[in-house]
């Protein structure tokens, strides 16, 4: 019996389907509505303190998607695999949103004094005397002054942004150039992108560790954790995969993703995301277990701030939301292979990441530490990040439309067009 070929052909039109414009419009509308809500809440609260705190949450979400997307892009260039082809162009579009993240960051840089105790305190002795800071904070701020000061904050952040911009620009330019080259050169392209991405991942790990230490961890100048950068790195893998899978599954309602998205790769991506769900809780719990065992006065208050005074409810919910629920759902093979359900899991995981950041950020502030209480301001944690992420999504949709959503000059294209199991 002769072998039949069942391979599908790639559609001629490879640009993003027109409904991406619809997403953009919807995101903009949501963004405007939630901006208005945020403004009303700030008015009710009578201060913009919480707007700024929630702004950091929104910044970390947009930063996670954009720069985490760049990191995932580099990872898939290094590992290869058909799953990478599916999310490559969405990841590129995510990485190209870096300018918006920079704009978001500018607000944090300008309003540094309201967010960071170490920026607010110039004269440690005077601040100690006036009761603004306690002795532990005074010691930490004085000791960490060479690192935690406004100039270093700005310069380190700018350097990080410059490095990320360089990688974003390089990978995006080469990604497009590769498509216009002849297939004979493909092996060279694969090697070239691998050689850029490999060191890029290392550089990224260092720069993003610096960034999250400055932007989030230093809100509490007394505390430190050596796993902090890695926690955010894994958290970015968690949310980037959730978003990228969400995008490719939503794109698969129309060509060209309808043709190239196979259940096999969808399942692979689901498994990959499951690994990040595990790694995320592993690192989060490891940090807790070590600090809990040590029970040192330098470290344990950070957790007490986030457990006592009803924060225990939030951390319990956080554990359920961002580990237990995705873990239990992604255990199932059927859910990973079902588009509709996997989309729901991805949406949930993005929400859960934001919830986790709320738990990380809000207790850094004196009024909220060990004291979870309602104020109009705390609702900003919903309004501001939703608005910021919506604007980010609109920008992402714009970027997604600028180039074909499938890379053609890749040997995986032929494989991905074959029937699910190549044997039959």
């Amino acid at each position, binding site marked *: *019996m002769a*072998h039949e070929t069942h391979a599908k052909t790639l559609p001629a039109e490879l640009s993003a389907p027109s409904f991406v414009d619809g997403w953009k419009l919807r995101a903009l509308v949501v963004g405007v509505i939630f901006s208005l809500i945020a403004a009303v809440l700030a008015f009710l609260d009578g201060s913009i303190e919480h707007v700024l705190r929630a702004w950091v949450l929104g910044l970390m979400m947009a930063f996670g998607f954009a720069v985490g997307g760049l990191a995932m892009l580099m990872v898939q260039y290094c590992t290869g695999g058909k799953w990478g082809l599916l999310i490559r162009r969405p990841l590129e579009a995510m990485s190209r949103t870096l300018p918006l993240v920079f704009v978001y960051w500018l607000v944090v840089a300008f309003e540094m004094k309201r967010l960071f105790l170490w920026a607010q305190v110039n004269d440690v002795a005077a601040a100690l005397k006036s009761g603004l800071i306690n002795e532990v904070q005074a010691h930490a701020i004085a000791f960490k002054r060479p690192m935690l000061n406004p100039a270093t904050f700005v310069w380190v952040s700018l350097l990080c942004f410059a490095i990320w911009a360089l990688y974003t620009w390089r990978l995006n330019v080469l990604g497009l150039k590769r498509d216009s080259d002849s297939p004979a050169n493909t092996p060279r392209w694969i090697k070239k992108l691998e050689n850029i991405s490999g060191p890029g991942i290392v550089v990224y790990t260092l720069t993003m560790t610096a960034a999250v230490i400055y932007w989030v961890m230093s809100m509490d100048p007394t505390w430190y954790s050596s796993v902090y950068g890695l926690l955010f790195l894994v958290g970015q893998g968690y949310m980037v995969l959730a978003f990228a899978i969400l995008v490719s599954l939503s794109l698969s309602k129309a060509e060209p993703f309808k043709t190239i998205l196979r259940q096999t790769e969808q399942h692979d991506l689901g498994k990959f995301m499951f690994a990040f769900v595990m790694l995320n809780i592993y690192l989060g719990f490891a940090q807790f*277990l070590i600090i809990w065992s040590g029970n040192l006065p330098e470290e344990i208050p950070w957790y007490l701030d986030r457990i006592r005074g009803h924060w225990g409810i939030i951390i319990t919910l956080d554990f359920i939301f961002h580990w237990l629920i995705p873990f239990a759902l992604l255990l199932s*093979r059927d859910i990973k292979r079902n588009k509709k359900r996997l989309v729901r899991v991805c949406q949930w995981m993005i929400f859960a990441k934001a919830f986790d950041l709320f738990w990380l950020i809000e207790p850094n502030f004196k009024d909220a530490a060990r004291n979870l209480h309602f104020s109009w301001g705390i609702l900003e944690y919903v309004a501001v990040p939703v608005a910021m992420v919506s604007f980010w999504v609109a920008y992402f949709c714009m970027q997604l439309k600028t180039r074909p959503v499938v890379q053609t000059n890749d040997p995986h294209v032929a494989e991905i067009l074959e029937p699910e199991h190549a044997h039959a």
Partner: protein
Amino acid sequence: MPAREGTYGLLAEFDTPGDLVRAARKARQDGWRRLDCYTPYPVEEAAEAIGFHRNRVPLLTLIGGLMGCAAMFSMETWISVLAYPLNIAGRPTYSWPAFIVPAYEWTILFAGLSAAFGMLALNGLPSLYHPLFNAPNFRDGATTDKFFLCLEALDPKFDLRETKAYLESFQPVSVVEVEY
């Protein structure tokens, strides 16, 4: 079970997995239920073609994992709270964060063991005798490069002559009768 005698089934040999899957799919469509595919490596379509059904290994794994977790966590609680309550750096005797790691390890261990032994219990391995090994081409080819479809004599549709003709319509390399 008393030793069976007579024909176990008819065994068709194919050169490619594609041919096997097409034949198996057709046989299943035509109402065959006592049939099986044998391939040198896993061919998922073959399993689907003959009506792959879910088994209970995932359930056993889940139950095993949960039992391992519960067993270890309760054991640690019993040891630390009731049997040997020790004051370790002033911590409460019920210090659950410290119990998580061993409980987690036992979850993995018991889930893994349940999966392995559950699989063996449900699929009937290890089996000391299988009639198909009476066919020389099966002995030589089933683990290297041949793909087999066996229609078993237990199927009510089975008839030695008609079934042989039916299998030959798939143009296999050979069709042989296998004795118990």
